[in-house]
């Protein structure tokens, strides 16, 4: 198993500020916009962006929610892994709102497909956009593309992208991990 660094802390900082600015460009004062972090890994990015928008760009009225997609996934009883549920916390109605889904890595697109179904339980949004830190190109199983992307990565299937966050793993880093054994 080998790993190489895709993004370091400084690069992640620059990308987060760019993504925040792109959000402001499209959503202005966020009065009709809600941010939804996809559980479990999307919530760190969502919280970080919310903090940058609030502290550095004076956007104070951001509504942030967490959406768990476990019960909406299409691999229940199909994968070896047991699907464990996380907390959904959406304290607002998304009816007629502009929703931005936030996740760390976009890979097959199946999680986002599940999130698109799951969010319907909370109303009918005006539109839904997708923001991801890492977009793994050429690996999509579904016709889903991000509206905002941090970095595009070409990775083969045996490789895994791992995003570490300061508040969780103690560092801001993105690694590309090759799961094949070294010869």
């Amino acid at each position, binding site marked *: 198993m080998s790993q190489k660094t895709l993004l370091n802390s400084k690069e992640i900082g620059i990308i987060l500020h760019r993504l925040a600015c792109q959000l402001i460009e499209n959503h202005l004062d966020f009065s009709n916009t809600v941010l939804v972090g996809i559980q479990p890994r999307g919530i760190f990015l969502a919280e970080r962006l919310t903090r940058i928008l609030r502290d550095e760009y004076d956007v104070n009225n951001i509504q942030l929610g967490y959406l*768990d997609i*476990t*019960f*909406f*996934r299409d691999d*229940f*009883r*199909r994968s070896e*892994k*047991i*699907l*464990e*549920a*996380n*907390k*959904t916390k959406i304290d607002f*109605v998304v009816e007629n709102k502009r929703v931005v889904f936030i996740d760390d890595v976009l890979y097959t697109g199946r999680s986002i497909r599940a999130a698109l*179904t*799951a969010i*319907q*339980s*909370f*109303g009918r949004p005006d539109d839904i956009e997708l923001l991801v830190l890492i977009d793994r190109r050429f690996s999509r199983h579904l016709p889903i593309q991000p509206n905002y992307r941090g970095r595009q990565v070409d990775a083969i299937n045996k490789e895994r992208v791992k995003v570490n966050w300061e508040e969780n793993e103690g560092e801001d880093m993105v690694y590309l991990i090759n799961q094949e054994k070294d010869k």
Partner: protein
Amino acid sequence: MSELSVNHLLGIKYLNEKDIQLIFETADQFKEVINRPIKKVPSLRDITIANLFFENSTRTKLSFELAEKRLSADVINFSASQSSVKKGETLIDTVNNILSMKVDMVVMRHPNPGAGVFLSKHVNASIVNAGDGAHEHPTQALLDSYSIREKLGDVAGKNVVIVGDILHSRVALSNIFALKLQGANVKVCGPKTLLPTYIESLGVGVETNLRKALEWCDVANMLRVQNERLDISYFPSTREYTQLFGVNKALLDSLDKEIVIMHPGPINRGVEITSDVADSKQSIILNQVENGVAIRMAVIYLLASKIKNV
């Protein structure tokens, strides 16, 4: 990643503490789901569940059916009173006939203790025991503990008294197993004739004075006198039972602390508890019913995740 240690829910006796925690944590998420504007998730859309009720039930049957439907499972219902069981068909034949219609899971209530265990050895489906005679009623015990956890923060270390007909009660036995497993202190209270002889061997205390029991406890779980199971007279009269083992508002108010009142239903108002107690703010009877759906969703979801696809 955790999963249940069992493939069937036949009784609390077969679970470990981790199983109970996993069920509770999963139920937390389902409780959030059933409070959404749209209360349904598609997880079990390829699972078919048969509800076999060989004995009468209102809330358990409705609660299971609702839980299954909220998980998008296909549901078929069966009541013994309207079926070929009356014509002499055996339990295994009845269930195998139903299973040959491609059913993945069976929720069964049966008047005979051990019916679920028996079935799990002879048929190829996940079995959920919804009450077997005077043996176990695991989902009721889980929702009772879950309701205590929700109200008091934790089950461990709490004093719980189960009052009433312990002898004929599957709710009592399952509750004792579940509460002990989670580290609660348990006492039973009732007329001596309705307390099983060796009940202390389960590690529970016995108290025949209701006031003393209530003064000791944090939670009182009031059981119904199961008149339909009383083959002989176990106490002189209902009036005397109520006087000695019924909880009324005056008794509750005379205690120096506020205890939590639970009841698995159906309530005989004026017998084991009076109406003003059942409807008081100390009572969590309706929370128990709401939590019942979340707990059953969690149990069904976790068992279904162990049924392998193809």
